[in-house]
């Protein structure tokens, strides 16, 4: 969370934050904006006039004409200081680190989620990072492009009760996600040039805040490595299996790679204390390794042994916790070469439903969406259909 060091005292001088600006001003009100963290407030014009008196360091006592902390003007100043519009002189030259950017539109037009514990059942976080794989160039634009495409299938609320309407799966002839609330927290800030550890630590911090009250986190990449923060978060709560649908070739060397990439994601995930098994589900034509419950890293082919995924579960346990990842780049698309091994939509749709029946899905990532590919509209709608299918499998498995 963005911090402020303006510990408020009526007699200690404060100064306007250099990151404050006025977006709108009329006779009765002003909209003030803090570019360091995106906070936006609409305040009475009289309060705005008082605020401007902090252009040079001044004490609230002097501006408000009282030191009574219960006085309305003093309470307002304390709130503006708490939000960062007023700062201790000299303290705000460097803005506090901003963790997320607000997207221009939100996933399915769901409500925006502020950087605090989400009360929604599901919360989205964009990970516009594509430095984890040479071939993923363009995927940094995946989160914003998927949000734009998602406006074709809007999230809706009952006008009387506020209950989420959900959708209807015409293929299965059943409602999906009825009563399940969604929120979108925006995109993780990526400072290009920084190490992945810095960006991903930011993501971990944000995800931990957002999910503190139990929301199911959904990471929208980015390349496949962006799944790591949400996997790391999910395993904090207990034993976890990871099932990722893709076609990344992972070999033994990659499991011990020094750098987090799409290829080394399994190794990084398996190094986490509570990740018990990592399953890569690959297209039919790629060879799977078969289902071996003694192995922590398993590769299965979707049309062969994926049906036996449930055999990986310990039958003595109730539906085991699982993270589900979907690499959209591995789905068949119009521009694919016929020789490229690809998943079909129908296979992945069925697989997600099967996972929901056998496991308890506690987190989801969707990655590999590159709006620069030919036929992006079809790719995007495929991704969004599979995302809603995965979320339905998590929240209303049948």
């Amino acid at each position: 969370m963005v911090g402020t060091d303006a510990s408020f005292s009526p007699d200690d001088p404060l100064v306007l934050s250099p990151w404050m600006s006025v977006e709108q001003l009329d006779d009765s009100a002003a909209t003030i904006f803090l570019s360091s963290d995106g906070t936006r407030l609409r305040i009475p014009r009289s309060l705005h006039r008082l605020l401007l008196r902090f252009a040079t360091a001044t004490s609230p006592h002097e501006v408000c004409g009282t030191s009574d902390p219960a006085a309305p003007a003093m309470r307002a100043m304390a709130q503006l200081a708490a939000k960062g519009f007023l700062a201790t002189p000299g303290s705000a030259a460097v803005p506090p680190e901003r963790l997320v950017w607000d997207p221009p539109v939100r996933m399915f037009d769901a409500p925006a989620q502020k950087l605090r514990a989400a009360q929604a059942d599901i919360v989205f976080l964009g990970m516009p990072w594509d430095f984890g794989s040479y071939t993923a160039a363009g995927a940094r634009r995946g989160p914003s492009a998927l949000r734009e495409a998602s406006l074709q299938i809007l999230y809706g609320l009952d006008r009387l009760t506020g209950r989420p309407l959900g959708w209807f799966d015409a293929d299965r002839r059943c409602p999906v996600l009825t009563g399940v609330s969604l929120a979108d927290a925006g995109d993780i800030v990526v400072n290009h040039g920084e190490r992945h550890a810095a960006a991903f630590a930011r993501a971990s911090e944000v995800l931990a805040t957002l999910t503190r009250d139990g929301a199911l986190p959904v990471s929208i990449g980015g390349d496949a490595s962006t799944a790591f923060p949400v996997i790391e978060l999910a395993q904090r709560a207990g034993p976890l299996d990871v099932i990722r649908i893709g076609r990344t070739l992972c070999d033994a060397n990659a499991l011990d790679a020094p750098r987090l990439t799409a290829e080394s994601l399994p190794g990084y995930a398996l190094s986490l204390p509570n990740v018990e098994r990592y399953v890569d589900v690959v297209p039919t034509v790629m060879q799977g390794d078969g289902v071996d419950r003694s192995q922590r890293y398993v590769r299965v082919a979707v049309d062969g042994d994926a049906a036996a995924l449930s055999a990986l579960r310990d039958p003595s346990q109730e539906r085991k916790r699982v993270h589900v990842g979907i690499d959209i780049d591995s789905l068949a698309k119009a521009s694919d070469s016929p020789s490229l091994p690809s998943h079909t939509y129908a296979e992945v749709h069925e697989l997600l439903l099967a996972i929901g029946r056998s496991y308890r899905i506690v987190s989801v990532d969707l990655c590999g969406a590159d709006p620069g590919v030919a036929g992006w509209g079809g790719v995007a709608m495929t991704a969004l259909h599979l995302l809603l299918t995965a979320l339905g499998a998590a929240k209303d498995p049948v």
Partner: protein
Amino acid sequence: MTDHGLFGWPRGEITSLVPGDVGVIGVPSDFGNAYVSGTRAGPEAIRRSSASMPLQDVAGHDLGDVDVFDGADWPEIVERTGERVRRIAGQGAMPLVLGGDHAVSYAAVSALDRVGTFDIVWFDAHTDFCPWHGADWHNHKQVLRRIASLPHVGRLLVVGHRGITYFDESLQWPALEVVRSASPGHAPSIPSPWLEGERPIYVSIDIDVLDPCIAPGTGHPVPGGLSLDTLCNMVRTVARRRHIVGADVMEVNPLLDHEAMTSRAAAEVLSVLVRARLPHSLPATDGALA
């Protein structure tokens, strides 16, 4: 504009048509799609793609495009399109309309009121049954609901509906029947009652009925669509068994296409339709219309 018409047929006038011919018009309109434009270039893209599949064994004339970009509003475009369709049918020929967004189909269907009651087979990923409240305007999401309100329209069959929707669209109209895109292990087929009877059929093909891997060039793709073979087989079956009163192909958007895959698929399914249709002409509905 291409020199030759669809399938290499000559460019012509209404008077060129004789009973049994196919009369082609293009309607380069995307007035009915609020989300994305580009289907205005659909008719020309389909004609270009059809150049590699000439149909010398089927008689047809391409009458060119309806004027759209001369300041006309949508009701005027509907009227212009309807007038052309009426005149083609008046010659005893089969009108074949190249879209354009799917809202255009209303213009063709409404203009065939003198044919008598006919049924509609609507190949589409969507049912196009969003609420429509009786205005002059409708969009491509409402078009089948508006068509259903026409007194000369009988039963409606939507083939290929699928995906995530807002509600159960298959229950929107008593005379509406829906064949879903696929159930595991089964390719969809035309229900047998739809292959019998004397009542004519209008066939409308929204190219998004195909899977986006086959037809990416369309504004509202939905995963899990039909294969081109499956679509062609169903169109062939209908055309061989029922009398086709008119047909269209809609929602081809070349701006979103990849290597003309979508316009080629559209041309291919149209070639199947015109080759397979029953070898009798429509009765000339009214000479005065010609």
